[in-house]
Structure formats: C-alpha cells, structure tokens
C-alpha cells in the first residue's frame, strides 16, 4: 500500500492542476460580472484547438519545437483578444440587470453556436500535438515515471492562484475590480469606467479558459465534445469552491482531483461519479460552496 501514496498524491496534484485551469475562468467571470457563462467550456476547447493547430503548423514547417511552448500562451491570448470583448459587448452586456435565467439561456445559446463553429473551423477529427511534453522529458518519483510537463502544470497552477490574488489585492486594476464587485452603481458614480472593467474581467476569464485548454492539449489532445465535458466539470468545481471564489476554486480542484484519483486507484468503476458525488456531498454540508455565501460579493 505504501508504495502508492506518493503516486496517489502526485496524480491528485496533476489532476487538480488541469481541473483548476478549466474552472478558474468560470468562477472569476461570475465574481465580477455575476454571470454564469455556460459557454465557458467551449472557450476552453477553442483554446485547445488553436494551440493544436499552431503546434501542428510548427511541426509541419519543422521550426524549432521550443516555439510550441510560446504557441500555447499565444493561443490563449489570441482567443481572449478575439472573443473576450466581442462576446461581452454583444451578449453579456445585454444580460446585466436581467434575471439569471436569461443569462444562462443566452450563454447556452452561445455554447451551441461555438460548438458548431469549432466543428466547421477545426474539423471533426481529434487533434494532438505533444512537442512540449516530449521536450521536457520524464522523472521517476515514488517508483512511477511522470512527465515533467505534468509537474510544470502543477507549478503553473500555483503561480496563477498567487498571481490572481496579487492582481486583486495589490494592483490598481484589482482594486477597481473589487470596487465594481462590491457596488456597481457606487463605482460608476465615483467615475470608474465599469464597462471597461467588465470587458477586461470577461476577457481575463476567456484567457484563463483558453489557457486551460491549450495547456491540457499536449497531454490530452482535443476532440469534439471536449467543451461540453469540461463545462460540467468546471461547474462542479466552481460550485464546490463557492461561486466567485478563486481560492475556493483551487481548494475545490484539489478535492475533485483527489476524489477522481482515489476512485481510479481503489474503485475504478466509480471514477466518473467521483466529481459529482464530491459536489453533492460538499453542497449538502455547505449549500453555497466551501468559501461561498449567499451574497457572494467578495472576490
């Protein structure tokens, strides 16, 4: 038994890192804009598709494989720049002040549109480009060989958590966001350009979603249906952590990652049930999530 403890922990962390990247954008967007973006999963998979396409292009032209790392980041930036302001201005802004049902329906419609757009642009086959994985090599830990790429992702996830926290607490933009979250009308009346804040916050959410997809792509590839599957996982994590809570999302990712890994190691037939069962259990004890509250006004 003891020789499985370290692999168990490492697998949980590696899993949690991927899950965190999938979910953090969703909870961030909710905290600032109070909108639950059902199309979040699609933006994740678009990020993965763009990263795969750029990666395959780099490989086909036989350019330096190290460029593929830059490709991952560039994909996320590209997707955020293209879709962030566009979606926020046309669809999301229209839903402010309307009921949540309307928001959910509008973003669900967007999800459907984006799913078909992906099929039309990127085709229906699965794509895979693993140059970043191959370049980084492997390490043996606890008797099991791990990809250094997996360890890198764990590190990146930690950096993102710390980075977001610092953004909110220690930068001017962060303070503006906090003000807008706390009281929208008040923020407007003291001269804060809330429209700009909303565009920025939403684009940041899109960036994180696309980055998640891009970072996962070298280890998991991308195929049609990835968006829908990721969406519900992101949902589960955001719900467990408390909607709008970044640290909550991190803790929730750890819980879901651990639950999934424990299932695979000991009760393989329940591996798909684990995230939802975890969500149900947490919500039964704390109905608004671990760090959430009814008003959910803190970022």
């Amino acid at each position: 038994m003891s020789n499985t403890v370290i692999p168990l922990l490492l697998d949980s962390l590696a899993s949690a890192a991927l899950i965190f990247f999938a979910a953090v954008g969703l909870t961030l967007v909710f905290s600032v804009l109070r909108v639950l973006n059902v199309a979040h999963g699609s933006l994740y998979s678009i990020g993965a598709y763009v990263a795969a396409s750029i990666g395959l292009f780099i490989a086909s032209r036989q350019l330096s494989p190290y460029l593929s790392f830059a490709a991952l980041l560039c994909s996320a930036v590209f997707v955020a720049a293209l879709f962030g302001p566009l979606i926020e201005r046309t669809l999301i802004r229209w839903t402010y002040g309307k009921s949540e049902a309307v928001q959910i329906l509008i973003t669900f419609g967007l999800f459907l549109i984006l799913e078909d757009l992906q099929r039309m642009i990127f085709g229906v086959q699965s794509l895979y480009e693993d140059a970043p994985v191959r370049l980084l090599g492997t390490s043996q830990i606890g008797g099991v060989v791990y990809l250094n790429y997996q360890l890198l992702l764990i590190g990146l996830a930690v950096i993102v958590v710390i980075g977001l926290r610092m953004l909110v607490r220690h930068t001017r933009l962060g303070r503006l966001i906090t003000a807008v979250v706390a009281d929208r009308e008040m923020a407007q009346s003291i001269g804060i350009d809330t429209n700009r804040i909303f565009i920025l916050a939403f684009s940041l959410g899109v960036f994180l979603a696309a980055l998640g997809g891009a970072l996962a792509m070298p280890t998991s590839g991308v195929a049609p249906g990835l968006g829908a599957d990721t969406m519900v996982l992101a949902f589960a994590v955001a719900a467990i952590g408390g909607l709008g809570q970044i640290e909550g999302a991190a803790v929730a990712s750890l819980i879901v990652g651990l639950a999934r890994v424990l299932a695979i190691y000991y009760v393989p037939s329940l591996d798909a049930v684990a995230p939802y069962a975890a969500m149900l259990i947490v919500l039964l004890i704390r109905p608004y999530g671990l760090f959430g509250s009814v008003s959910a006004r803190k970022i």
Partner: protein
Amino acid sequence: MRLKTCLAVLALTVGLASSPVAAQERPSSLGLGIFTFTSGPAAAYGMPGKNAADLIIDDINAKGGIGGVPVTPIYVDEAQGAQGVIAEYRRLAGDAKNQIMVAALSSANCLALAPLAEQLQVPTVGWNCDTHQLLIDGKSKYMFRPNGNTIPEFIAYAIYLLDRKPDIKTVAIIDPDYAFGHDAANIFTAALKAMKPDIQIVAELFPKLGSPNFQTEISRLTAARPDVVFSNLWGADLENFVRQASPRGLFTSSQVILALGETVLQRVPLPEGVIVGVLGDGWWMSPDAKANSETVKFVQTYKARFGEYPVFPSIKMANALIYVKAAYKTAMQKNGGKWPTRDELAEAMKGSTVATLTGTTQTRADNDGLVDQIVGVTVKSPDQVFPVIGDMVRYKGDSLMPQTGQDPIAWISTLKPEFVKTLPKPGSYK
C-alpha cells in the same frame, strides 16, 4: 387562413413521402445504409472504414454495379448517439430502395440495431459487430456478422501470450467502459485463467470511451508493475494512450498487448515487441493478402487515394461489402435472375461461405461468421517507416469458437493448458 396552412403542410409532407418500388423490377439504384463514425475520437477507426467503402463501391460501380444496378451508399455518423442512429436506421429502412444495412461500428449501436433489424426485417451486415452478446440467442434471421466474434479474437491473444511468455504471473487490463471493453476483459481473463490458473489480475480499469487523458490510469498501471498489460482501447483513445504511456515507460516495464494496435501502427510510434493483431485476418501485409492480386490492387489504390495503408477496419468494411455482393449473386442465382427481395437476400446470406480479400468467411447456422485470427508482435521493417507485424500466427476460425448454442464463457472455462499445444506456434505464419 387556417385552410391555407393545412394545405401547405399537406403539400410539404406529400413531397417528403417516398414512393415504394416493386421488388421484382430493377431499381434505379441500390441504396446501402452504411453506419460508421465519421467524427469525434472514434473517427480514427471509423474513417478508414468509410474510405474502404468508398473505394469498393466506386470499384463496383465502375464495373457496372451489382446486377447492373449502381450502388448508392448513405453514410450515417454513429457519433450522433444511439437515438440518432436508430432514427436514421428507421428512416432508411422505410425506403424500399435501401435493401441492406451495413451496421455498425460500435458494439453499443450493434446491440441497439439488431432487434430493430429483426422487427423491420432488413438484412443487416454487422461489419464491425464482434461483440459475442449480439447473436447469443441464436434466433436472428436478419442480423449477420461475417467478420468474426470477440470470443476467438481475444482467446487468440491469450494463447499467443502464453506461447510467447509462458511464465507470466500478473496481468492488468485497461479497456473502454462499454460492452466491447468488458467483453474483452471477461474473455481474455477467463481464457488465461483456464489455461494457467495461477495468473493474477492486479488491476482492471475501464475509462470512459472517448476519454482524452489517461495519465492517472497510467500511473496506476505502472505502480502495480504487472507482467502484462492488456488493452482493447481503440480510435483516438488508443492513440492518446500510446502517446501518453510511451514516455512513461509502460512499454518497457510490462509486456503490452494492444488488441487493436494495428490501427495505430502508421500514426503513433509503437516500440518493438508489442503484441498486436487485427481482430480477424484483415492484415494487408499477411502472406495470404500479398498472394491475392485483388487485395494487392486494393491496397495500392487505397494508399494512392488516402495517403496511408488500409488498416483492419478498412479490410473489415471491404470484406463486408464483398459479402453483400456475394449475397446478391447467390440470391439472383436462386430466383432466376430477378431482383431479390430483402427476405431473399437474408436467405442467401444464411450458411454462406464467401472468399474475402484476406481469407474466407463462413456463416454458421446462428448467423455468426467464422474467420481466421492473425496475431503477432511489432517489429521494425526495412521497407516501411512504421513498424509492421512479425512472428505471426494464423489460427483457424473454427478452432477457437464454441459450438452453436453453447455459452461462450462456460466453454472457455473448460479449456485446459494443453489446448495451447494443439494450435500453431508464433512465427508459423509466413
């Protein structure tokens, strides 16, 4: 206003209705409903099937069609799910021009469509329906399965393994989580345990079909350190699994068996020494295939048109269509040259023996097909950039099948270790 709307709706629906065709006169075209995956992770396995269908049907039509009637394929994408597949089957079956269905790829869809075939009385050729659950009640009249059955397919791997590595003790299994995966696990395990009772199964993982990420499963497998890892993952799942497992040393720490490994030989870098097969006899480089001029031509045309060599799903589809063509020939011989009805076609398929691109398929009384099984290991080849299958063995179709009506798993548990000795050895098929 109300009347106008009613009339408009009426006109629309009359336009949609299809006119029935009298069975005896030659129709303008022969419709074949062909079910495969053309999108999603399974398309990596399904598209070679569609490509082969295109090639064979173009070839048939170039030679004048079947009985002078051109063939029109109607492709149904199985990725839309059971509901859509069933709806499409019903829709196609409702048109008398569509006489035969070639369905399906996924065992789930095969199991869903088989009762429908019987209810709607449409001859259905299961081109990839190898799940042994399919014809288990022996009462099928319209469902046929010329390409073989999971029982001999997976027993073959057990026998090859024991022949090659008689001293193995621990086995881990990672199969997709549906009928095909569970069947393979049961059959392989039962066969191993019957012929070498001290074998231990140390892990059984069933990831969801279409899972992109196997990292945790790979950790679990390598932590358990089994002598053998058996997998019948397929499609993009298999490609992902190989890509993810290879750098992590799974292929060096265990003897890996990839039951559907031949499909990814040209796509992912498989190391040498992996036990692979073709779930039947559809290996385009087998001695029998190379000796058959029609097969050689097929392979060359396929490579020229699609840029890669035909993998065994292509051969299965091609053989299924040859089987359909043979059914028409037999039916028309029997009824004096008239265009056959659906029932006459089903009659023609019963008990038939058809020469395929890579061997022979024999249809038993319960509509099950007997084909030989080819298994080997991956070896480097001087002629190709990708590894090929070497050290091959060819097991005869009927040597690994239970009798008609016998419970397959019960039959497997009656096998003894001596059974291995009665069969050909690895490397004997040259």
